[in-house]
């Protein structure tokens, strides 16, 4: 069974809005995923966190955001000024957000399914990420972009 048959953009939007309301200091506005992706490509820095789902469906859930948005999220979660955060704190915070999105996606899939720990990378990733994703949902946080991608395992970039 394909992940994309069970998880659509509406589901991701709902999960992400709950996440933003809980853990992000500013409200995320839904934008076309292509806009968020283009904005991420232009951003000076970006952070991508991915969790793998395996079992009844195989695939990945990724959360990418600009580095300033990642720092703002980390500052909120740690309760510290951005200047006091090291890079590990920022990647941990973005990784936890991906873990939460992935966990909520997993709960909607037929058992058995398991979720990997998040893998966080900084800097550009595969340039065709929007094209190969089976579901992509973009958000804007006062000019800072975020993108949630769901990929079926068969579509994951090599």
């Amino acid at each position: 069974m394909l992940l994309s048959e069970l998880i659509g953009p509406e589901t991701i939007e709902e999960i992400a809005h709950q996440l933003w309301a809980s853990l992000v200091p500013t409200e995320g506005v839904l934008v076309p995923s292509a806009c968020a992706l283009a904005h991420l490509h232009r951003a000076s820095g970006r952070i991508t966190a991915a969790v793998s789902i395996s079992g009844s469906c195989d695939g990945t859930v990724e959360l990418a955001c600009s580095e300033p948005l990642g720092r703002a999220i980390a500052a909120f979660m740690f309760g510290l000024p951005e200047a006091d955060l090291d890079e590990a704190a920022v990647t941990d915070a973005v990784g936890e957000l991906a873990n939460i999105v992935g966990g909520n996606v997993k709960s909607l899939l037929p058992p058995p399914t398991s979720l990997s720990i998040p893998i966080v990378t900084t800097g550009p990733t595969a340039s065709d990420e929007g094209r190969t994703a089976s579901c992509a949902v973009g958000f804007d946080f006062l000019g800072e972009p975020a993108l949630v991608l769901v990929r079926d395992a068969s579509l994951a970039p090599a």
Partner: protein
Amino acid sequence: MRALVVDDSRAMRALLTNILRGIGAEVVQATDGRDALEQLRRTDALPDLVLIDWHMPEMNGLELVKAVRKDPAWKPMTLMMVTTESEHENMVRALLAGADEYLIKPFTPDALLEKLNLLGVPVPEQALAAVTGG
């Protein structure tokens, strides 16, 4: 009130710690189930409340709940799962293993304080009023 926050994410530990310190709790942290058990065995001042993530390396949250509930001396501790694991079957497993409450991530601080209040954990009136609008 003393609390132990068990989560492999630094950011989530910090978030939960800040919320609990906001209601006057003394908070210590553990990075996984094994770390939590070691701290519980060493301490002279057991926590009143333990917040436990499910998916962690070394020892997961469900295993920690089972281990804690095996020791009668630890029975007074209130155990709350705070996790993305929201499958009904797993929630039941955790509660049957001895967890007292279950909170699914993402959560708001208000949701956590409401759960604590329901468990009888002392939450200052001012903080609770902010949650309930009272």
